[in-house]
């Protein structure tokens, strides 16, 4: 029943989109776009209802949910696997379509509507022709569903209980927030793509397009920043390895659009103010979205090994066709506009704002290329030598590290860049005290912690960034409200500076050790005493949890091992984390052997500071809100 309704509404949405694509009535599409949003919202709700009703006649629910799954994770199961997550993707896409019509649509041409509807048709078509979360189950497996149909009104079979979501995905409430946030960020990058291609398709030399494209990129950037940060937090809280970023392919492909969007937010300003870098801006505004499709292809087609990779199907071919199509669209429109691009003013003053933004863009685009190559290199290697490899993280440390350091040094000057010149003398005079303070601080830190040149310049750059921008913001905040994109930038830069300090602390100071203990023991770790109490086992519907309470002073926290029932019976080791501003003590169970436990104690420095910095960057949008 629900299966048929879902499939029919999917078709309805598809037909509605076709009408939007094919008709040329300007007064009608307003209504149709609203209908499109409504239908996709309806699909979302229907699948949520089916999840809560445990309708195991749906292939998706039989395979990725279970009756024993707690409500919050049932809700999150909608985006727990590929088919369902496309539903969320389409909903967000439809919402942006509606938003675009409402806020950004200024001209009377219909190219934007056509391109936008084409993009949604592409993703909606996937649920029609390839695999849909509403596909009905026609053949049972021992648990879950073995075969399904995409046709409505079939005789469906219903399994008794579902397989349940991937255990990793039902272990922390962040799972309910992180993917939607990320999707809102990802999918939002469709806006600059649509705006750039549709405005230039008719060689319509309306200079408004770059302003609108820049404006529309900002909110997706905020969500992308927040989404990636929450993903890092999730990894830290759930996976029990004590880290937050592994240069995993899926992390990489979220980082590439972020790098490009950050570059675009800067370079668009040069076009708005000085009419420079026209071709570059056009390329960036399209590449952001293309990199999103590419990322989806890499991670959802099963071509790469990754913790996030969903199982495949024919989505790979489907996505590569889409990627090729939209890339061709971007290239053809670009070639048609060569004359327009040639009218661009030349960058002449390399020490003014444009010069700084060019440098910033080269560095950001450079790191995007590096991350891109790191992600696809194993693919090419396997194709050529038919041997599987992975890239060690030292690859990224060697290449991306120095680029980010240079970016930090550029950001230090961002307080005083004017159109034509960096006012270096007044910058020096104003920040005389701060510069000296930073130098002294970094000498002290270098002396005490790690006497290497690399450490010293990284520390110096980060401290300079934080104190100089911090002072700039405080001075202004005393007098008036922080309004406008200059202050957005300043706050975002401050956040990155704080983040960098946390990162340095984390990378240079953290240590760990493995200890074999039994309950009743008292452990000394990092000048602190930890009492190991008696373990207990909790039987829940969906999992058994072995808790090992660990006591420090008067706080007790559990390091636990979650053993999930159903499906794959994976065990996940959840950490006990004793938090502090400067460092966390992060304890995970490695092995259990009767009453003996092997624990990993980690002293992780700077974690709180990393989150703080990322939060400040994400919240920078506040100064862009209108009063």
């Amino acid at each position: 029943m629900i299966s048929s309704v879902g499939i029919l509404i999917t078709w309805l949405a598809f037909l509605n989109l076709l009408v939007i694509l094919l008709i040329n009535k300007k007064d009608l599409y307003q209504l149709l776009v609203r209908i499109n949003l409504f239908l996709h919202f309806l699909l979302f709700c229907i699948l949520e209802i089916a999840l809560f009703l445990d309708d195991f006649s749906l292939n998706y629910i039989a395979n990725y949910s279970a009756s024993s799954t707690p409500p919050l994770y049932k809700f999150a199961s909608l985006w727990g696997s590929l088919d369902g997550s496309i539903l969320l993707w389409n909903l967000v896409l439809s919402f942006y379509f509606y938003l675009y019509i409402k806020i950004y649509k200024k001209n009377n041409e219909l190219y934007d509507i056509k391109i936008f509807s084409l993009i949604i048709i592409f993703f909606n078509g996937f649920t029609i022709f390839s695999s849909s979360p509403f596909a009905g189950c026609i053949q049972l497996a021992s648990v879950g569903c073995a075969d399904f149909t995409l046709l409505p009104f079939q005789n469906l079979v219903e399994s008794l209980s579902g397989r349940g979501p991937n255990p990793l995905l039902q272990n922390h409430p962040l799972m309910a927030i992180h993917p939607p946030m990320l999707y809102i960020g990802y999918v939002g990058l469709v806006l600059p793509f649509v705006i750039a291609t549709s405005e230039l398709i008719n060689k319509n030399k309306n200079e408004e397009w770059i302003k609108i494209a820049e404006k529309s990129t900002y909110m997706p950037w905020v969500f992308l920043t927040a989404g990636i940060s929450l993903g890092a937090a999730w990894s830290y809280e759930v996976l029990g390895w004590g880290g937050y970023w592994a240069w995993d392919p899926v992390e990489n492909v979220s980082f590439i659009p972020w790098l490009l969007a950050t570059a675009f937010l800067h370079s668009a300003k040069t076009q708005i103010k000085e009419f420079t870098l026209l071709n570059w801006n056009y390329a960036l505004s399209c590449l952001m979205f293309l990199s999103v499709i590419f990322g989806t292809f890499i991670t959802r087609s099963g071509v790469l090994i990754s913790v996030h990779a969903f199982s495949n199907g024919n989505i790979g071919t489907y996505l590569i066709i889409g990627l090729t199509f939209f890339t061709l669209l971007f290239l053809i429109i670009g070639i048609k506009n060569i004359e327009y691009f040639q009218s661009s003013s030349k960058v002449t003053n390399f020490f003014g704002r444009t010069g700084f933004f060019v440098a910033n863009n080269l560095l950001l685009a450079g790191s995007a290329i590096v991350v891109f190559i790191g992600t696809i290199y194993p693919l090419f290697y396997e194709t050529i030598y038919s041997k599987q490899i992975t890239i060690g993280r030292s690859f990224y440390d060697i290449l991306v590290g120095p680029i980010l350091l240079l970016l930090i040094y550029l950001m230090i000057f961002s307080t005083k860049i004017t159109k034509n010149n960096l006012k270096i003398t007044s910058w020096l005079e104003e920040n005389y005290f701060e510069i000296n303070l930073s130098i002294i601080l970094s000498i002290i830190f270098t002396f005490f912690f790690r006497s290497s040149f690399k450490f010293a310049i990284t520390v110096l750059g980060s401290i300079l960034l934080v104190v100089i921008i911090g002072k700039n913001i405080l001075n202004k905040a005393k007098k008036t409200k922080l309004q406008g994109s200059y202050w957005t930038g300043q706050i975002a830069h401050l956040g990155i500076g704080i983040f960098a300090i946390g990162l340095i602390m984390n990378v240079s100071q953290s240590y760990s050790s493995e200890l074999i203990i039994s309950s009743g023991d008292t452990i000394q770790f990092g000048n602190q005493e930890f009492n190991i109490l008696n373990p207990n086992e909790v039987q829940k519907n969906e999992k058994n949890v072995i808790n090992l309470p660990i006591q420090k002073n008067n706080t007790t926290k559990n390091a636990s091992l979650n053993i999930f029932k159903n499906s794959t019976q994976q065990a996940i080791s959840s950490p006990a984390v004793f938090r502090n501003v400067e460092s966390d003590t992060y304890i995970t169970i490695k092995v259990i052997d009767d009453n003996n436990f092997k624990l990993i104690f980690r002293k992780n420095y700077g974690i709180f500071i990393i989150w703080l910095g990322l939060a400040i960057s994400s919240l920078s949008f506040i100064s862009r809100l209108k009063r």
Partner: protein
Amino acid sequence: MKKNLLLVLFGISLIVFASIRIASSNTIYYYTTTEAIDNITEISSERIKLGGFVVSESVSKSSIDETNFEITDGNKTIKIVFDGFIPELFQDEMGVILDGYFENNIFYSDDMLVKHDNEYISEDGETYDVENYSK
């Protein structure tokens, strides 16, 4: 215009070249047991990923630090000393990928990926598919 384009292309190819050079020196290879034994002298100092199937009744635990077992690809067998978290799924004839290094023809590992079949694929020792592996 043309000059700029050439400059950009040159820049991109420089980055690409540098990244590929560095990537190739930071590569972690996957080996099957046969490949590993055939190349054992070359790889004895490196950290590699070794894949194979757990030999039946070879698993024994000598201490909390050490689980011993053997893995095979159906052709050649390698002794494993494992110190790390053992996934619940781990059992005889299971496909595993181990991260570690060789010492005296014994493979020391502290990180294990177990093949988990979300798709309930039939037992198939011949096709060795790494794509469905997860921790």
